[in-house]
């Protein structure tokens, strides 16, 4: 009897079955890989740019899942990292520096540095206070960006030339940009999986369950959390780098608190603490948004209540819903 309850509660965490094992990510990535070929049959440019956007947001959502799903560190300022990465590209491009060999390390470095500095302060607090202090730092970056008058201020900054790699214009065509995002998403996904399963990941997850116990065994919990926070920041910066290239534009709106809320919704919508859920959630969020806004200009009237329904009836998100369904079918 006791055994049964234990498996029931830990089931979503332990990878097993088609939905939380390898079949779902395999299907997802195969779909992403094959999509450009299918898209040639329809409106190619539209589908490519939409799915590129999905993959970029999925990268950012994966990083956030690393924080909230595996570390219970609810960050309400995740958009700041994406914005920093994007602004690094935009500002460098406006000075004529457009090679990714320079701009990518800078984008990642700036995000890492910001994550490190703010992480030291944020991780002193717990629970709700952590949510609010990450929000505060996010707002600081937001206001800094909107007051950068030489770089567009509130109106944002148009990027006239996309990044190159060693002089090669590989970010130039929509299709190659698509595959670059695909490779980045795959890489980030595998990295996150490896990280979560590693010794580091076990300590980090242990701190989510019981930080006091972990520190009693002799781990300096905050250090592990700080490392995870910096990694998540760097991944966010990567997403920002790609986003700036995909949209040819950066603006303070990339780091508004509403955008941070969007990222949270993606992760929760998909099912947090599963990684697969983050990708699924980003796709579901953006596609639902696209679909509903095609139907009516007042799509938020439908989308808002939908979020409420998810929160009330499907706390585990899409992945949780799928697991519940499978259990019902199996009895």
């Amino acid at each position, binding site marked *: 009897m006791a055994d049964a309850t234990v498996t029931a509660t830990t089931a979503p965490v332990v990878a097993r079955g088609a939905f939380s094992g390898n079949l779902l990510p395999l299907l997802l990535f195969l779909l992403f890989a094959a999509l450009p070929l299918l898209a040639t049959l329809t409106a190619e440019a539209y589908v490519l740019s939409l799915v590129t956007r999905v993959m970029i947001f999925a990268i950012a959502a994966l990083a956030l899942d690393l924080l*909230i799903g595996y570390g219970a560190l609810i960050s309400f300022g995740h958009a700041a990292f994406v914005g920093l990465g994007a602004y690094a590209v935009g500002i460098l491009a406006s000075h004529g520096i457009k090679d990714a060999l320079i701009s990518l390390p800078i984008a990642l470095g700036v995000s890492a540095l910001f994550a490190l500095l703010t992480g030291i302060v944020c991780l002193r*607090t717990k629970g709700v*206070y952590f949510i609010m*202090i990450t929000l505060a730092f996010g707002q600081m970056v937001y206001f800094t960006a909107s007051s950068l008058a030489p770089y567009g201020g509130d109106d944002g900054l148009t990027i006239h030339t996309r990044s190159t790699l060693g002089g090669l214009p590989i970010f130039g065509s929509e299709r190659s940009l698509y595959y670059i995002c695909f490779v980045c998403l795959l890489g980030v996904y595998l990295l996150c999986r490896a990280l979560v399963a590693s010794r580091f990941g076990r300590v980090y997850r242990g701190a989510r369950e019981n930080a006091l116990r972990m520190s009693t065994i002799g781990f300096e919990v905050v250090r592990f959390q700080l490392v995870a926070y910096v990694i998540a920041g760097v991944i966010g910066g990567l997403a920002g780098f790609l986003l700036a290239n995909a949209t040819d534009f950066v603006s303070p709106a990339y780091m508004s608190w509403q955008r941070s809320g969007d990222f*949270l*919704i993606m992760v929760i919508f998909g099912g947090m603490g599963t990684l697969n859920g983050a990708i699924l959630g980003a796709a579901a969020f953006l596609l639902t948004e696209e679909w509903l806004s095609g139907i009516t200009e007042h799509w938020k*009237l439908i989308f808002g209540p939908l979020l409420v329904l998810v929160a009330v009836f499907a706390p585990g998100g899409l992945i949780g819903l799928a697991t519940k369904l499978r259990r019902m079918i199996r009895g």
Partner: protein
Amino acid sequence: MSLSLLIVQTLNGLQLGVLLFLIAAGLTLVFGVMDFINLAHGVQYMLGAYLAVMFYGLTGNFFFALVLALAATLAFGLLLEFAVFRHLYDRNHLDQVIATFGIILFLNQGVKLLWGASPLSLPMPEMFSGSIVLMPGILYPVWRLVIIGSGLAVALVLYLLVNHTRVGMLVRAGATNAQMVSALGVNIRRLFMIVFGFGTMLAGFAGIMIAPILSVEPGMGDTILILAFVVIVIGGIGSIRGAFLAALIIGLVDTLGRSFSVDILRLFMAPSPARTVGPAIASMLIYLLMALVLYFRPAGLFPVKGR
């Protein structure tokens, strides 16, 4: 940086402070007693303003509009509590964030649908329009003084309610340890409904009072919500006293920072970089303050939870 400007801006800061207090008071109690993050608190403020505009259109009298709008925001808040929030008290913060975020999206859009996207305005009552002379050479709008006065009056009433009535005692006890209060036989759910309704009404009241000097538009609750969160986090979640002090501090720091940051920076910077950096620092100032407070006192200035 003249003295008269300093006085006027200090009063403006006070006015922002009491406005923030009206919103933060409900938020901090809801947060403190039920451990419930209500992002939708800001839309109650917006709704108060819109309802006041609507009832003013119907009655043509500010005071009727005030009373009717207060009643309507209260009713709407209780409806939300009954329909949605009630199911989320036992959930984690994330579920609460996502659900209340959904409500923000819905109401911001709903308001746009009903009243249009362009800003509306609410005329202020005749007898409070115009300005009075505070000191020789200093004119100040009467309505802002009315806002400050009514905010301070509300603070006083709240102080008496929370510290000297039975319900207030239960609310304080609930903020400290809700489970214990419930175990002692108090219907904490009903207590919470009272607190929630009251908080909603205060947020609506803030919206109505500010409507004559701000434009009433969709999304007006979002910025003020974030400020209110900063206030309650600095003050210590669940503490009315903390919320009051933090609200005044935030109001003053933000307003004075915005008006004098450039001048202060010019004391030790060239004028042109000062003009660029000044506004940036001014808008970051309160977040910087919050980060500092939380760094040194991770549970705010007046921690309530006895854990």
